């Protein structure tokens, strides 16, 4: 198991008048090499949950075990943990601070104790290439002068350079145009295949989660209320809508068609598959 969460409860500002229970008895398991999605309404506790995965928050009650390290144990080596778990925050480009792309991407590497210049450059090069940025032409540029999409890619590269075994992403595509969004999503797929990383994707976009993940956790009010493969989870349109979520457009379309008695398959993943299915039905209807 890559990530095991047992009866995790987390309370912000415990003992003060601002006390809020953000997580309430959450348990989950994430397998090695899996891509899972976590969806939920704003304030449902998904960000709080994933911040436990690299020790940014410590459980109020319960256990979180990452690759065999129990983070409720005060003595664990956080540096070791953060080497294993990469965390890409929402709008990661806002954390950029260095003068050059090379320095920016090597920041994390230096922090985890890499100081050999050649090795650093090698890693930075590899990371930049993962996000399609040419090392030679970008390494000496100031990250602040890049375009929004490029900044995001540099910020992501700075995490990937650390070669984490688990990658956590909080809304990695927020604020990007469709091109940038598709680019990031295809890169996530590629990276997952290449390094067989465990990936946890926190997202508001049902489309993203539907297309990308093996398993989905649905959160509401600090609890996990549903869990399963996206195809199964998104069949519960009414329930998801009742907790302020939706279903991907393609699923909506399928549900509507089936509601009208048109028997399309209920497990299509994309609009292209749906089109094929409709074509199949149409042709069958024409040739008795």
């Amino acid at each position, binding site marked *: 198991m890559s990530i095991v969460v047992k009866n995790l409860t987390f309370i912000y500002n415990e003992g003060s008048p601002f006390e809020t229970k953000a997580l309430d008895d959450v348990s989950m398991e994430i397998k090695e090499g899996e891509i899972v999605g976590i969806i939920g309404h704003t304030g449902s506790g998904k960000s709080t949950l994933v911040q436990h995965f*690299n020790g940014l928050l410590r459980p109020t009650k319960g256990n979180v075990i990452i690759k065999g390290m129990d983070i409720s144990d005060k003595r664990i080596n956080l*540096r070791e943990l953060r*080497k294993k778990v990469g*965390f890409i925050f929402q709008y990661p480009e*806002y*954390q950029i601070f260095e003068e050059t792309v090379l320095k920016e991407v090597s920041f*994390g590497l230096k922090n985890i104790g890499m100081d050999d210049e050649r090795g650093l450059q090698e890693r930075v090069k590899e990371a930049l290439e993962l996000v399609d940025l040419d090392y030679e032409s970008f390494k000496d540029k100031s990250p602040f002068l890049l375009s929004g999409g490029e900044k995001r890619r540099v910020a992501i590269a*700075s995490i990937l350079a650390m070669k984490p075994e688990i990658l956590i992403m909080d809304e990695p595509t927020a604020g990007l145009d469709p091109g940038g969004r598709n680019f990031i999503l295809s890169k996530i797929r590629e990276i997952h295949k290449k390094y067989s990383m465990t990936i946890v994707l926190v997202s508001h976009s049902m489309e993203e989660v539907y297309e990308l993940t093996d398993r989905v956790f649905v959160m509401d009010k600090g609890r996990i209320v549903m869990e399963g493969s996206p195809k199964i989870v998104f069949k519960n349109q009414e329930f998801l809508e009742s907790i302020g979520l939706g279903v991907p457009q393609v699923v909506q379309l399928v549900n509507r068609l089936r509601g009208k008695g048109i028997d399309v398959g209920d497990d299509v993943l994309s609009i292209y598959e749906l089109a094929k299915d409709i074509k199949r039905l149409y042709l069958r209807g024409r040739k008795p």
Partner: protein
Amino acid sequence: MIKNITVGQYIPGDSFIHNLDPRIKIIFTAFFVILLFMVNKLSGYIFIMAFLVLSIYISRIPLKFVFRGLKPIVFIIFITILANALFTPGEVIWSYGIISITKEGLWSALLMGLRLIFLIIGTSLLTFTTSPIMLTDGIEYLLKPFRRIGVPAHEIAMMMTIALRFIPTLFEETEKIMKAQMARGADFESGNFIKRIKNLIPILIPLFINAFRRADELALAMESRCYRGGENRTRMKELKFTAKDISALLIMFAFAVVIILNRFWKW
């Protein structure tokens, strides 16, 4: 975490003092400070103490908060008391080597200590019972007469309002950036002093850049809604004098009379 820092010390409530016009409260506080420095007898301080206790009671501010406000200045009070006790000439009652304590010294140390404590309690009562927005509104009105000599009253108030508005945002952002850098292995807790300062760079640079970006966006948003400063600008909440404010003014007047008369008493 840093998130819990409340801006200013405003404690929401619905008491007589909370509902006073902020202008009255600011003027009252200013007078209070001036009068406080006119008092030269213990009887005057006892009167002021009674007045403060009554005000705190009426405002329903928990005593805990009142005393907490005194904490940061305990040191200053201590130094003041010590200096007054040691360096006031007069009738020596105790001495050791070059150190000597006089009767007058002890007396003035006591009065000075009380003066400082009452000063802090009195002024914090203003910030406890007035929201930052009301406070800046009040300051704007009170500065208006000075516009003739070039004091940009509205601009000053607007800047204060914006600054107050963004303090929690900046705290939130600091926390976010700190977490993001910690996730990249940054360490803010160990190392010597110089190293720790250096470690702050990855937080400070993004923080400043984001603050400037935010300022730009805010300016643009204000301009695109045709904001152009004070002239002829109406407000959502007009400040109005009510019967309460008149009575507060009367109380202030009576208070001033007592303090001034107190100077002529024998004890």
